[in-house]
């Protein structure tokens, strides 16, 4: 017997799981580096959603105290802490994404491609050539 109450009652978790798996799948399965970063973002967003959904209290209002500080104990407030945490996590996520994109730009400049399998071929040649890596002076980038 399917326990519908359980399934509907945990709807936010189901969404979270679906979103998370979508993200992870993209990260693992896609060869294009930019698509990997997109997958990573979906993956992280699922966690943000998860945090925010656990901060919601049914019937709760915005957790702002009245100016006169007369706090009515009967009012139910939502939990603001998960939002604060997620704000921090979003900033971290943005930093990661921008760094990843910057790295992709550099990879494109050095390898001429952002497809993972093509990079593998180039790297394999480098690995097996046994060539001494150049110092940057001889390499001529700068």
């Amino acid at each position, binding site marked *: 017997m399917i326990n519908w109450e359980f399934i509907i009652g945990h709807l936010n978790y189901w969404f979270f799981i679906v979103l998370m798996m979508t993200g992870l799948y993209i990260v693992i399965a896609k060869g294009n580096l930019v698509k990997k970063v997109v997958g*990573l973002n979906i993956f992280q967003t699922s966690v943000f959603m998860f945090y925010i959904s656990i901060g919601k209290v049914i019937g709760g209002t915005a957790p702002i105290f009245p100016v006169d500080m007369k706090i009515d104990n009967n009012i139910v407030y939502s939990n603001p802490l*998960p939002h604060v945490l997620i704000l921090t996590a979003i900033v971290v996520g943005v930093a990661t994404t921008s760094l*990843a994109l910057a790295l992709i730009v550099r990879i494109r400049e*050095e*390898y001429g491609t952002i497809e993972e399998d093509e990079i593998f071929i180039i790297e394999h040649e480098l690995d097996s050539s046994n060539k*001494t890596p150049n*110092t*940057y002076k001889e390499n001529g980038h*700068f």
Partner: protein
Amino acid sequence: MSLPISHSDSFSLVEQLPILQILVPFVSAPLIVFIGNRTIAWWITFLASLISLLISINLLLLVNDGSIISYHIGGWAPPIGIEYRVDALNAFVLVLIALISTIVAPYAYKSVGNEIPKEHHTLFYAAYLLCVTGLMGVVITGDVFNVFVFLEISSLASYVLISLGSHRDKRALTSAFNYLIIGTIGATFFVIGIGLLYMVTGTLNMIDMAGLLEGKSSSSTVRSAFAFIIVGVGLKLAIYPLHIWLPKAYTFAPSFITAFLAATATKVAIYILLRFMFTIFRPSFLEELNVLNFVILPLSIAAMIIASLIAIFQKDFKGLLAYSSIAQVGYILLGISIMSESGLTAAIIHLFNHGITKVALFMVAGAYVIKRGGSLLTNLQGAGFTMPWTSAAAVVGCLSLIGVPGTAGFISKWILVEAAIENGKWPLAIVIIFSSLLAVVYCGRVIETLYFKNGNDETIVNESPLTMLISIWIASLACIYFGLSTDITISVSDLAAKMLYLK
């Protein structure tokens, strides 16, 4: 809104030590960018490391009697505010980080000058100091979400630092990218775990959380939180099947960064693991799930044997050392999974001793990169004669890695074997000895190429620069010192293990 704050008007620096530990490297980083001079940048890095070392030694002395320092940021008392909490274990890891940072700083001057273009130097040092800040923050904080934030600070900084190795070899870029993807997945798993714990307890303070988790070990939320955290941290610390990012990242990063990260980054991840397993989830929870016997123990044995075997067939000296690092992480995890006080002591000592050993070896590898044009074993042929002092340090490091008596590696392996036998797990002792034999093989390969494969018959001495030699030899002598005089390391890690196990 005014808060009840205890106004102590006396200004005392000792009370502020925990925050200063973070602030010194943190303030230095923007200061370097602000001044924007290469030489001054190096001096600031060196001084910041030195001051951090003094602070961390001070902290260690303060908590060496088993006391705990608790510092409330912004005067907000825990569990609401963020708390910095120092006990014997963190203080010990802090000393390790600061010590390594101080040792590698003189080495950095020539090594960075040789491997990184000049216009990037100031930003490079700033990123390095941010990485140090992040690692120290992870260790010192008593708030689980703060652990994540600091972990990401240090990880982001290390992605940047690794990718800067691209001026020597472009493969640094792809290895940094892979590390970024895997590290971010790990960190996100870690956050999911924290979120689940927060759902159950409604707090983020470690001690508070530990108290509230009492008696909730059968809840599936708590269990899945534990699983998420173990996998997340496992990705960062390169538990055996999750190690793919590590060898390439360590091989292609600038030598200075490899030396620093190899000695500290994985150790800090192990610290997080210890903290979560023993302070937050308590040993009784671990026993109930039996996770150590079924997950950590087999994986650590696999790491010790398979990673050592792969290390034997490496072409690159740095790659060889990187695989050996994975094997050594296996030793530390083995110590944890023995599930006894003596096992934990062994794990904590090995954490410290391995840090010292690896920093020496990776610095040697960096010296070869500069003088020999690369760290491939073919580059190293006959280097024992042209670079006698550097190569001698390599031999000392290798001996410590194998665990020859008189070196730091011997002490930790001895205690590990002792702990295994004490708990009636003598097959583990055999595994440890077998893995050490594998270490003899790969270290023997290095020493053979250094001294007995004189490819081009060079005899002219072409030694590495003096500043680098000083760092290398300080680290090598530390290997020997901690192998002969064991009072400090053993007493501190014993205390740390006791506090972890009882709490």
